[in-house]
């Protein structure tokens, strides 16, 4: 039946499915950021939100973060976890092209060719390091066994490979030609997701639903209309031109206004972490340790005053296996001598969003300052923050990060020294070795224990100070939306076809 629907959709100039549902677009207002639909080039959560709707991989995540088979029908694990065989289900891209194992090989190869951050996670694929330099597909342990069967060979067993393949970064793309791993992906390139890009502009992006999906709600959005830049999301929400607010903690007055308009809250962003990044090139170890010790996560979470916000004691979100707890943080702080350095630190932070009720920078300044030690606040915009983070040019930055996929390892790999996405200034061969070793541990309990040890090592570099986890940002949806599943990973992990429109 599904095949029939898909064939009909691909054979008709104007898909019948899209014709039926013009009436209920979901409107999302995003800040003025440089968005991409290329899963191997995205570095921000907004792009990930769009990629997730347009592209699909062998596996996917449910709104709750469960791994589900997507383009895969069944699979086998052989040779003690060193070899996988994936059998593809019958599926097409939005232009009607049948998805084959060649698309899978080319798409996974492109991750390494483009140096995408997920490559740090799936380095266990055999020949990945060699392929990054040779660019020869024969060197990579991904092979097309037949049109519908793909073989994936690993250097070492990995219990994370399915979770990693379910990440939006591992989307299967419609790549053809003799040099499939080269080139950039056009914004309107067909994908395997239930939405396709019909408009891609600097200020407006429109996605159209072209096929049903097995996670569809009863009334999924027929269109997703994204406005980029311009008025803030909150202003657009109050003006009834935005249906989603995902980033801001709102004051009581604003909250009341939205509630009056019929907005509702759903569980979201529980895995999002706020942290301070300390640049060791600019801040001496003594100061970094002082700031680390002086940051009381419990007091901070209490000051935020939201039940959905919890103290962050490590880099793996609380509730995710392998997370640290208060005792770990106490032990880390106890090892730091009590002394106040002389000097000053420059804390960079995004300028407060209108209506936001809590300013982390102000709270930190109060907590850190002491006689002889000063904290200077330096406001900056979102794009500058990203630039400073990735180029390592900032001094002390307040940043945020969600999960790429639902395993603590997805956070830990950000601390791998060999990848650009490591903006935490942790360059430790010992930690790299620990990460490699952790990936080989198949028993989840043992692996999670190793995660804890790795976090201790990361935090002892004193370049990152955990602050809080969770939805200090609201998951607010307008009255035009009837239902949204809980999505603890944040909006960027939510398949929008699961949203039910009125």
């Amino acid at each position, binding site marked *: 039946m599904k095949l029939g629907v898909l064939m009909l959709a691909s054979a008709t100039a104007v898909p019948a499915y899209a014709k039926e549902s013009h009436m209920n677009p979901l409107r999302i207002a995003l800040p003025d950021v440089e968005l991409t639909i290329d899963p191997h080039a995205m570095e921000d959560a907004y792009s990930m939100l769009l990629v997730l709707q347009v592209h699909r991989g062998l596996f996917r995540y449910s709104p709750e973060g469960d791994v589900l088979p997507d383009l895969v029908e069944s699979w086998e694990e052989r040779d003690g976890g060193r070899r996988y065989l994936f059998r593809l289900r019958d599926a097409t891209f939005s232009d009607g092209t049948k998805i084959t194992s060649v698309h899978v090989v080319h798409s996974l190869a492109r991750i390494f060719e483009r140096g995408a951050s997920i490559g740090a996670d799936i380095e266990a694929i055999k020949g990945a390091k060699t392929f990054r330099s040779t660019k020869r597909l024969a060197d990579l342990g991904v092979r097309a066994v037949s049109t519908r069967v793909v073989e994936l060979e690993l250097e070492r067993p990995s219990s994370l490979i*399915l979770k990693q393949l379910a990440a939006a970064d591992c989307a299967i793309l419609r790549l053809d030609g003799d040099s499939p791993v080269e080139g950039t992906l056009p914004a309107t390139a067909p994908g395997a997701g239930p939405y396709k890009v019909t408009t891609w502009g600097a200020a407006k992006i429109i996605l159209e639903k072209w096929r049903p999906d097995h996670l569809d709600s009863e009334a999924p959005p027929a269109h997703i209309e994204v406005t980029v830049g311009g008025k803030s999301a909150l202003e657009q929400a109050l003006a009834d031109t935005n249906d989603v607010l995902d980033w801001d903690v709102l004051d009581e007055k604003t909250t009341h206004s939205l509630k009056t308009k019929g907005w509702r809250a759903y569980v979201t962003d529980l895995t999002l972490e706020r942290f301070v990044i300390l640049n060791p090139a600019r801040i001496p170890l003594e100061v970094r340790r002082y700031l680390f010790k002086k940051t009381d996560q419990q007091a901070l979470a209490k000051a935020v005053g939201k039940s959905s916000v919890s103290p962050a004691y490590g880099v793996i979100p609380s509730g995710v296996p392998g997370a640290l707890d208060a005792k770990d943080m106490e032990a880390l702080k106890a090892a730091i001598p009590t002394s106040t350095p002389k000097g000053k630190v420059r804390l960079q932070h995004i300028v407060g969003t209108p209506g936001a009720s809590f300013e982390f920078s102000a709270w930190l300044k109060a907590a850190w300052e002491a006689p002889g030690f000063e904290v200077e606040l330096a406001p900056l915009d979102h794009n500058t923050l990203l630039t400073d983070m990735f180029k390592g040019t900032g001094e002390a930055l307040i940043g945020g990060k969600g999960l790429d996929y639902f395993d603590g390892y997805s956070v830990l790999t950000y601390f791998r020294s060999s990848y650009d996405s490591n903006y935490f200034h942790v360059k430790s061969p010992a930690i790299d070795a620990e990460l490699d070793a952790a990936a080989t541990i198949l028993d989840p309990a043992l692996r999670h224990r190793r995660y804890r040890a790795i976090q201790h090592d990361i935090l002892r570099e004193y370049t990152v100070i955990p602050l809080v986890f969770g939805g200090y940002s609201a998951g607010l949806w307008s009255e035009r939306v009837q239902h949204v599943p809980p999505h603890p990973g944040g909006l960027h992990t939510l398949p929008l076809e699961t949203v039910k429109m009125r």
Partner: protein
Amino acid sequence: MNKDLMPMVALLRRSFRASVVPFVVGLIILAAAYSGWEGYHDAQRTTALVAGHATAVATAAISSQDLLSVQREIKRFGDALRDDGHARMTADISIDGAVIAQLRPSGDVRPPTIDLVRKSQLPNGRELIVTVETSLWGSVWRWLAIAMTVSLAGFGMMLASDVTHRLFVHRVVDPMLDAVRQVATIASRVDVATAEDLDVPHSSVSEVEDMVVAVRCLVSALERHRHDAAAATKALVDRERENARNEAVARLTQVLAHDARKPMSHLKIMLSMLARESDPQRFRTAVGRYADRVEESMARFDALVRDVLDSGASLALDTRDVSLIDLVMSARYATQTADSVTFRFDISSVARLRIDEQRILRVLGNILDNAVQAMDGRGVITFMAQPTRSDMITLGISNSGTFIPREDLDKLFTPFFTKGKRSGTGLGLAIAERIVTAHGGAIWCESDASIGTTFWMTLPSAHCDWGCKPEERRAADIV
């Protein structure tokens, strides 16, 4: 059966033996006496006949004065008598002492004979005397022949009875006696008693009675035996169960002791190494390496202890929503296998389960451990899932190449039942059943020599917040 065959036959046999000679003798005497009596009456009748005829002839002759006619008539009369069967007699007819005629129908008369005289008065006043000598031989002979025939018949009957007796004894009584003895023996065996204890009479009036008594004894003994056997069987089962329990407890204790020692010894080695290690990097490496081992062995010990605790106490489940695939993958990765084991996943279901994850992981772990042990390091383990009802999911784990006999399938979930396993407490599958049942599900096993063994279980599906019924969905007021 109130009348016995054997005494009757024996009585007949004894009676025949005891009475045949007197009977024959008596019969002969009787025959002789009867033949004498009959001969006498015949003689009387013949004498009367002769005398009457002679008188008539003589009277007629007196009238005619022709005495010669008397002789002729007498002679004709004699011939007639002979023709009538009265040949064995002679008669002298005399008048006044002078014999006037003699009858000799068949010549000599053989003894014994009887003489009878009949006198009559002739019309002329003269006395006619008829003297008849009749032979008794014919009658004696006839009756002796009858007696002999009867005697022979008696002997024949005796012989027949003897033969019959022998045949009866051989064909009926002896087998019956054997049967009695066998019954008695069986009774004695089943009752662990002697035949005497069973009160089986060997010299009673009849074998049939013996048989009846023996059968009654046997029935009684069997009845007693049935009760005793039931009691003995129960005692034996109890004893075996006790032995099995003791053995299981001993095995469990051994396993617990062994697994408790393992982390201790790892800790000991680690501590001794750490005490000698001064380099921080190597110190950390050593800690990391041994901590994993300690953790692993302690986790195994902890799982064992939980097994023991769960086997006795009531289960308080700590349920939450769990992804089916995450659950399956966790179970798979917690299972150590040889490289030659292939795992196949036929799971297209997007379902979530509402379960006590740790406990269900133990269930899956137990099944997988058993499968891996049974496969001897080679083959395919397949995970399958399909929705059973709207609120239940059926999860299957199959392994190739092993077969569980039908008679063992029902025992698999019995505590302490083990077969062919080198280690283990025998509690795994029993606890698995408890855990699955506590979730409101069921667990069962199917095994086929050509396919392998599959464990199936039904588990409750979780509340679904997408692609599910509207009334099940949650929404929250803005906070």
